[in-house]
C-alpha cells in the first residue's frame, strides 16, 4: 500500500507501523473517567467494512503519527492527516 504523506508525499506502507482505530485518540481522563469508560475506549471497536480512520506511525520515515482514512474492503486511501493536527482539532491543546 501507499500513503500520501501530508508532508512527504507518497510513501510505502512498509515504512509505517500500524496501531489501530483512530478512536483511540479520544483517551478518557484517568482522574475523572472510570474503568467502564476506559474499557469501552480501549477494547470495543466499530470495525467497519468500509471507511476506517486508523493510526499509522512513520517509523522508517519522519516519525509522524498519521490518521489514515482507508476503505477496509478496497484498501483505497481516502485521506491522510497528521495525527497531531487531528488531536489539536479535537481540542487537545492547553
Amino acid at each position, binding site marked *: 500500500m501507499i500513503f500520501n504523506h501530508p508532508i512527504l508525499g507518497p510513501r510505502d506502507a512498509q515504512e509505517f507501523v500500524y496501531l*489501530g482505530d483512530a478512536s483511540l485518540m479520544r483517551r478518557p481522563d484517568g482522574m475523572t473517567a472510570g474503568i467502564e469508560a476506559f474499557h469501552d475506549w480501549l477494547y470495543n471497536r466499530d470495525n467497519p467494512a468500509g471507511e476506517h480512520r486508523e493510526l499509522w506511525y512513520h517509523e522508517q520515515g519522519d516519525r509522524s503519527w498519521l490518521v489514515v482514512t482507508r476503505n477496509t474492503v478496497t484498501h483505497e486511501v481516502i485521506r491522510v492527516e497528521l495525527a497531531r493536527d487531528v488531536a489539536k482539532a479535537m481540542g487537545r491543546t492547553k
Partner: protein
Amino acid sequence: MRYSGFRVIAEALTGHRGWKPVWRDPAPEGEYDYVIVGGGGHGLATAYYLAGEFRQSRIAVLEKGYLGGGNVGRNTTIIRSNYMLDGNEPFYEFSMKLWEGLEQDLNYNAMVSQRGILNLIHSDAQRDAFTRRGNAMILNGADAELLDREQVRAMYPWLNFDNARFPIKGGLAQRRGGTVRHDAVAWGYARAADLRGVDLIQNCEVTGMRIEGGRIRGVETTRGFIGAKKVGVAVAGSSSKVMAHAGMRLPIESHVLQAFVSEGLKPLIDGVMTFGAGHFYVSQSDKGGLVFGGDIDGYNSYAQRGNLPVIEDVAEGGMALMPAIGRARLLRTWGGIMDMSMDGSPIIDKTHVDGLYFNGGWCYGGFKATPASGWCFAHLLAKDEPHKTATAYRFDRFLKGLMIDEKGQGAQPNLH
C-alpha cells in the same frame, strides 16, 4: 447413504450411478427453534452437535455464500492443543479429542493426520517459555515433548543448522498435533448435519435482526424473514458486521491473514513446523504442496487478499530455516478475514439480547477449534450455560481484567 471402501468399490463397478447429493438444498421455513448464522466449520459443527448430542430439532444454518466458503475453506489446516493458559488449553485439548474420533463420527474421511507439530526454539528465554507451556499442556492432559537440538536435527537434518542467524536450539513437540483436510471438515459436518435433519440454506445472507422486548425473534435475510427462538452467530471474519444488527460493538477487529501453497513436491516435511525466529510455519499436504504462512498483514481489512511485504517476509523466514526450498515454487497465495480479538482468544457467550448468542474472535486459530467450538456453542445454545471447557470465553473478561493473552501483547489485535 453410508460411505465405506465397499461402497466405493460397488459404485465403481456400477458406473457411479448410485451416489446421492451430500446435502439437500431446502427452502427456508418460516420459523426454526435454532437459527445458526454462518455455514462455515463452526456453524455447521454447532448445528451437527445441536441436532445430535444435544437432542434439539428444527435447526437451520444460514450461509450467505456457499457452505465452507469462509476460513474453514482457506486456512493452513493445522490442528494442535499446545496452549499455555488455563482459559485455553482445556478447550483445545477437548477439540483435539473430538478430532481424534471425527471421521468415524461423521462417516467422512477428513484426513485427520496426527503427524505432529514442532515449535522450534532459538533462545534460552524461548525454551523457558516453552517449558512453562509444555508443562501446562501435560497438566491439562495433553501431550508435549521438549526436544534438544540434536533431536530436532534427527527429524529434519536438512534444516539450517550450520549457517543460521538465529540457531535452532531445540523444539517443543506435540505428536498428536497435525493437519486435517479443511474442506472435508466443512463437507463432513454439512453432510452429517443434513442427515440429522438440519436445513442448510446457502446464498442466504442475514441483513437484520428482529429484536422485540430485549428478545430475539428472528433474522431478516436476503431470502426473507426467518423466525427463530434462538439465534447463534458463528461468522468469524464478519462478526462485527452481523452483530451490529443487534447494536453491538465487539472487542474484535477484522484483519487479513495470507496463506500460501507451493507446487506439488515429493515428500519433504512430515509434520507441521513453526520457525521461532521468523514468521513462518509450514506443513506438506498429501498432494505434495508445501502449505505455509506467517503473520497477518497487520491492518484492518475485509479484502480477503494481502500485500507483497508479508509474502516476502514469510518467504524470508522459510529460506532462513530451510535453504533447500529455494527452487521450490510458490503456486498460490490467498487471504482470509480473521476475527482478531483484543487478547488473541475467542468469545463464546450470550449477549445482552435474550436468545442471541455469539461465537467468534478466533483470530487465526479457528480451524483447530472447529469441533470443540461447535460442541461448546451447541451446549450454550441448548443449556444456556457454558461448556466446562469454555467458561473463560466471555465478553466481560475485558471489563474484569481476566484476559486470556497467550502472547502477552495486550489490547492490540494485530499483534496477537
